[in-house]
């Protein structure tokens, strides 16, 4: 049983956070430079989020299983949640099978320094947007 009670809640939490990150100039600029379209497929509860960095601004599209994504990533919702606290080492998670990634791995790794500021934003976001009960790490 995952930490989040249902898909709707997790989609609100993470989709909202991705939207916020997309509006943070320093982070967004580097993500947009990658031109990547990434599909995140989360389980327990099940949610699909596409983060499209191919245009002028970052678009977060929930539930899109059709769009062609250069990178596909799979993980549990709990691992994703913990990741945004900066508590999951991506390469270790891939090694342990906690995450799976299809597509150009170097491009994903290259984004890690870019998203580093987002780790500090996540707990603040949870508190400010009414998701304080999930601020656990």
């Amino acid at each position, binding site marked *: 049983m995952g930490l989040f009670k249902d898909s709707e809640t997790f989609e609100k939490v993470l989709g909202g956070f991705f939207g916020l990150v997309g509006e943070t100039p320093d982070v967004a600029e580097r993500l947009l430079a990658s031109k990547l379209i990434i599909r995140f497929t989360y389980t327990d509860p099940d949610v699909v989020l596409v983060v499209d960095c191919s245009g002028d601004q970052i678009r977060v599209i929930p539930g899109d299983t059709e769009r062609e994504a250069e*990178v*596909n990533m799979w993980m549990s919702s709990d691992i994703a949640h913990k990741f945004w606290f900066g508590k999951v*080492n991506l*390469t*270790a998670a*891939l*090694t*342990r*099978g906690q*995450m*799976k*990634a*299809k*597509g*150009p*791995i*170097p491009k994903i*790794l*290259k984004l*890690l*320094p870019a998203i580093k500021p987002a780790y500090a934003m996540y707990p603040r976001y949870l508190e400010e947007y009414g998701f304080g009960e999930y601020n656990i790490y």
Partner: protein
Amino acid sequence: MSSRNLLTVTRITLNTANKGVAMPLPEFFQFHVPTRVVYGPGLASDIATECESLGATKYFIVSDKTIENAGLIEPVTEGLISAGIEIGGTFLDVPQDSAVAVVTEVAERAQASGAEGLIAVGGGSVIDTAKGANIIFTEGGDLVEDYSGAGTLTRPLRPLIVIPTTAGTGSECTLAAVIYDEKSKTKLSFSDRHLLPAIAVLDPEMTRTLPPGLTASTGMDALTHAIEAAVGIDASPLSDLLACGAIELICKNVVTAVEDGTNMEARGAMLIASTMAGIAFSHSMVSCVHAMAHTVGARFRVPHGVANAILLPHGMEYNFDVAKGKFAAMAPFMGVETTGLSVDEAARLTIRAVQDLTGRLHALGALPGGLRDVGVPAESLPEIAALSLEDGSSFYNPREMVAEELLIHLKRAY
């Protein structure tokens, strides 16, 4: 081989320098080597028992023309056939850089042959081709669409036996394969524990005909794997141990192997070192030297081992401030006496030892001197520095890679 390990030596070295601290342990590491490694001169012509142990009696052989022309395939196939192992077919046209079309063709032909397993005889390209082909051979599907990435396989693949004919890539014991995609014009990486070969057959006789230049460049490739594995951000005490063992074997044997290719002791030591370094970097990855070497290789077709040999001491200089403790700890494995020296002094001597080794191989005519000698235009250095940051290896470097600073070291390597 010395029983000293890197952590112990690190403590001794740092304590000698009155620093009084040991290297911190990593937050997480995993060590996984399911590949059975067998070693012996002449072993490649006598591997029927190993083949049978995998539950398969019909194999498809993957290799290239150079290996075939060197007469290295025949003893393997004759040994198998005489012991009742069936050869379903062969593919002996693997190009220098493995590519998706070739990988797919190998898989299709292996499938059509009715083989139950693959045997790869060759260097890095042949081995990576066989690894990629084994995915499609076992699972079907599309190599790029379905499997490029990390952790995309869900179960063990069919048996893959690898017989390396160079002592450098270490691919016989790594979980990765790099395959060129003609469609996207990019090198795709495949990383999955199921890609690890079932058996690695280390037979120094299979490297006997390797020319001095290739012996030197592949040997320095292995040394680069070992040194970068030890300083990378994912290094662990276990990968350190193998890295240092590899460093010691390479430093003691590479010059002999270059000078006298018939010396099977030196050839054997280099082969074992290459595998040890391969296991080490398969766990802790490589970093800035490889990032620069990949770029130089892609832009100017500089052979990978040559590029690594030229760039290794310069990459070490780039990382000096953050990696000097590890460099100092490597010194004894390079035959450098460090008693009474500070960490800085011992680390400097380690880099000097690498330079001396490269210099000796250069004096033997087995390695070029600098980037200028391998067709790299001076005006391209800023571009190389910038592109190196894009390489996947850059992520594992122990300090951030900055183009302007890399350029200083690339100029020194010129």
